[in-house]
């Protein structure tokens, strides 16, 4: 049997109306689950600019250039627009923007992309301008219609009013006329003092659909005649198909075809279960000649050997070598090994391809660099880029997994679609096992730390060597390997940080908070050990070395105050503290820990203070801190992807790559530092401090420093 030649009923695209900047508008379909959610929103809406559309029903739809996967850009960007538009929150909606590297560029990256906790930071002014522009266009249209000066028109909570004449209207009545007006060149923005929406706990726009099952994710798109494809992947990194036998797979009811693709063997079926059953029935011989065959243990041994070799210099302040030779020093040394970590978002990677009558293709997926996906897919499908439309969908988490330069996932998905012949709509999906074993991990790292304390109890020297893969694929210094260490916030006169890049076929990737996942742990546990060595209180000790870093000190002081640091801790419990800046956001955390039923730390409470500049939506900021704490804690306590003997990947699903669960989640209290600094991101910065804070509490509770992660492996070893 081969893939049947049935074309879809999908209609072609029609051009968008004149005013917006080259945004194609898709026709409306019966249901989103049947078709996927078209980027850009309902074509009946009137565009004020590339980011704001207004409906005749008074709704305001914000086109989010950033993907929504829980970190809150739909709500955050809509808040910025609504503030300057003087809209009422109840009329606000948000959808994903179409894919366009210019119009929808992340202003920090220069191309469309979500990552680095940058959504609010880069779009803060841009979205406010988009709102202010739309407001000016509505006011101008109303002034024309009412024949009154625009300067006499007020807008408040979605109502346009002219007091003298008593005229009043919603936005909808003027949407069409406003859309025809030229936008003002430089719209005036509000003084932050008069903000009414920014800084308030507005309810999130995407909550309802995510509570009643109606929110559509990529995996939910099920057009008629859909083909499901899964790929059999190797269990070793760097392995390739040598040969395969699909006889049994083809016998499975519902299996349509089997094809070799660059990444493995693809099974095509009429439904998901048939695809899985068919894949299970494949017999594949893998070529391991170029595969990684060392175990994680062997890799770690190789990493540690590099500590003694000269590395790439990241920081060299003062003279560390001389400082360590000074008489009367106490020195502390530590070596810490960090494992590979999978991101394991709830929705495994997936994409849906639907060909239109004109041969162009709509792709529905949830990726952080949609235009890169577009370029990669167009090349593989042999189409002009303009004939491939990437419609960003809500994604079930990411944590960095869906931000891939070169779009390696899309390379597989598009190759699978191309090999199918493309005559049926196709959904390519990964199972949880594909996800856990799929690489693009937070790399393994090994740190060697050396600290010197003089007779006066001052930390005089700090040397740190970091060995691991370069996430950016660099031959020279990769800043993401050393960030958080090379810019050590503590005032230490002699500081040297070096790194070694390791080349592996195991593909690396950024993982929620990137370099800070390991540097934050290494720095914050090591400085804590130094303080313990000299009998210094960990909060006092840090504050004394943070005199030039007021924002670090601010969140540390606040977290300590929230926890009533220094007060009596319940019997059998201990407290730990850590403070980490990442992505220009400062987070201090205090944790309270006891020994749990499995012998691993049980974290009862986390007090968290965050300074992210202007707080656009405190509710979302708190949610991101809570979630970041849970995400970071789960990894530190439970998680490692390990290569077993011969290099085979050991873990495969949530039974052996454990996620934190509700019974393991601490109570969390979050406070936001009031600030007028520019807003910075909150998606990642909640993650780094929790691990070292727990390890610090654990060391003070048990006497055992945490030198290897996850902690559960140490306590059960």
């Amino acid at each position, binding site marked *: 049997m081969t893939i049947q030649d049935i074309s879809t009923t999908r209609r072609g695209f029609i051009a968008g109306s004149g005013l917006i900047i080259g945004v194609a508008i898709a026709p409306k379909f019966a249901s989103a689950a049947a078709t996927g959610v078209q980027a850009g929103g309902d074509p009946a809406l009137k565009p004020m600019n590339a980011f704001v559309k207004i409906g005749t029903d008074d709704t305001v739809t914000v086109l989010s250039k950033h993907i929504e996967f829980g970190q809150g850009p739909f709500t955050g960007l809509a808040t910025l627009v609504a503030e300057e538009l003087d809209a009422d929150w109840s009329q606000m909606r948000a959808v994903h923007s179409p894919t366009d590297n210019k119009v929808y560029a992340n202003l920090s990256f220069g191309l469309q992309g979500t990552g680095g906790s940058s959504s609010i930071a880069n779009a803060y002014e841009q979205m406010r301008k988009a709102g202010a522009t739309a407001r000016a266009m509505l006011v101008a249209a109303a002034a024309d219609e009412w024949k009154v000066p625009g300067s006499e028109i007020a807008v408040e909570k979605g109502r346009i009013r002219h007091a003298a004449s008593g005229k009043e209207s919603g936005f909808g009545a003027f949407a069409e006329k406003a859309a025809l007006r030229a936008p003002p060149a430089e719209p005036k923005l509000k003084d932050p003092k008069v903000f009414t929406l920014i800084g308030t706990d507005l309810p999130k726009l995407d909550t309802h659909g995510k509570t009643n099952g109606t929110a559509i994710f990529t995996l939910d798109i099920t057009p008629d005649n859909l083909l499901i494809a899964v790929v059999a992947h190797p269990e070793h990194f760097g392995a390739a198909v040598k040969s395969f036998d699909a006889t049994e797979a083809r016998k499975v009811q519902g299996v349509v075809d089997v094809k070799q693709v660059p990444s493995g063997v693809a099974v095509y079926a009429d439904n998901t279960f048939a695809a899985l059953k068919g894949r299970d029935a494949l017999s594949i011989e893998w070529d391991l000649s170029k595969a990684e065959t060392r175990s994680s243990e062997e890799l770690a041994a190789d990493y540690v050997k590099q500590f003694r070799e000269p590395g790439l210099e990241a920081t060299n302040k003062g003279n560390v070598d001389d400082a360590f030779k000074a008489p009367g020093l106490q020195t502390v040394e530590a070596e810490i090994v960090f494992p590979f970590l999978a991101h394991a978002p709830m929705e495994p990677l997936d994409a849906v391809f639907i060909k239109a009558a004109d041969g162009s293709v709509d792709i529905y997926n949830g990726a952080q660099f949609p235009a890169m996906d577009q370029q990669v897919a167009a090349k593989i499908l042999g189409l002009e880029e303009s004939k491939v439309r990437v419609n960003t969908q809500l994604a079930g988490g990411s944590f960095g997994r869906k931000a891939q330069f070169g779009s390696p996932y899309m390379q597989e998905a598009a190759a699978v679609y191309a090999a199918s012949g493309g005559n049926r709509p196709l959904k390519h999906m990964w199972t*949880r096992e594909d996800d856990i074993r799929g690489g693009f991990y937070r790399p393994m790292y090994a740190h060697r730390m050396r600290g010197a304390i003089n007779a006066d109890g001052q930390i005089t020297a700090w040397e740190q060597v970091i060995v691991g893969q370069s996430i950016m694929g660099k031959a020279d210094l990769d800043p993401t390997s050393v960030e958080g260490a090379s810019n050590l916030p503590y005032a230490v006169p002699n500081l040297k940080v070096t790194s070694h890049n390791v080349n592996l076929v195991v593909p690396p990737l950024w993982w929620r908070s990137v370099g800070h996942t390991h540097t934050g742990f290494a720095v914050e546990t090591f400085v804590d050990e130094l303080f313990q060595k000299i009998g210094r209180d960990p909060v006092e000790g840090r504050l004394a070395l943070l005199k030039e870093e007021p924002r670090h000190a601010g969140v540390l002081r606040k977290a300590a105050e929230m926890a009533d640091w220094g007060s009596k801790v319940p019997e059998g419990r201990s407290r730990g503290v850590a403070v980490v800046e990442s992505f220009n956001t400062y987070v201090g955390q205090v944790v309270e820990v006891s020994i749990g039923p*499995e012998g691993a730390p049980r974290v009862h409470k986390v007090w968290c203070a965050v300074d992210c500049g202007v707080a656009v939506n405190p509710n979302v900021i708190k949610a991101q801190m809570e979630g970041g704490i849970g995400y970071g804690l789960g990894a530190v306590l439970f998680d490692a992807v390990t290569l077993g003997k011969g290099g085979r990947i050991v873990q495969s*699903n949530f*039974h052996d790559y454990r996620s934190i669960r509700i019974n393991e989640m601490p109570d969390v209290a979050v406070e936001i530092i009031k600030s007028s600094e520019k807003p910075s991101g909150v998606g990642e910065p909640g993650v780094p401090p929790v691990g070292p804070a727990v390890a610090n509490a654990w060391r003070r509770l048990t006497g055992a420093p945490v030198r290897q992660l996850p902690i559960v492996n140490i306590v059960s*070893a």
Partner: protein
Amino acid sequence: MKFKLAFTGVAAACLFMTAGTVFSPISVAQDAGSKSLRPASSFQSIANQEQRSAALFQEAGKVIQHPRCINCHPATDRPLQGASMHPHQPPVFRGDGGMGLPGMQCTTCHSAENTPVVGQADTIKSIPGNPAWHLAPIEMAWAGKTLGQICQQIKDPARNGGMTMDKLVEHMAHDELVGWGWEPGAGREPVPGTQAEFGELIKAWVDTGAACPAS
């Protein structure tokens, strides 16, 4: 084939074998290599009846102390799982009648039969099931005990569910949930021998005075 899940009173415990031994195994005296049981008749050569009895129980211990059995006779309210006998994932707890807690009973995942899992983890080939799936009462906890201690416990009506020795023999030889140990579903090592052979060992042990191994 059909079986309904209306048997919400019945419940679950053991689960998957895992390759990644995240937790250290609880120490048990286990003859891991042996897949068979010596027949009860082969113990005739031991002249001393008490020694013979203890030896019979020692042989039955290959079954009793196998992870398939220990996992559902945990020392705490949380069942164990897999050949490494780590705490059950996801976390589940005893509840009323050993059938789980409200909202997370054994039947949330387990059913009346072993259920094959297709196309997922190579370390999870099936979800075990049985119409009587549930956790042994806490007074019947075996995990962490020596075979001698388990033997004493099994003879004690206060700690064996009030069973007479006849009932105990019947239970070991014919109980359906005990029998699951020999047919534990794909991906799981069965207990050694057959239930009939195990029943004969227990009967011969009782008939010889039910003596217990020293440790």
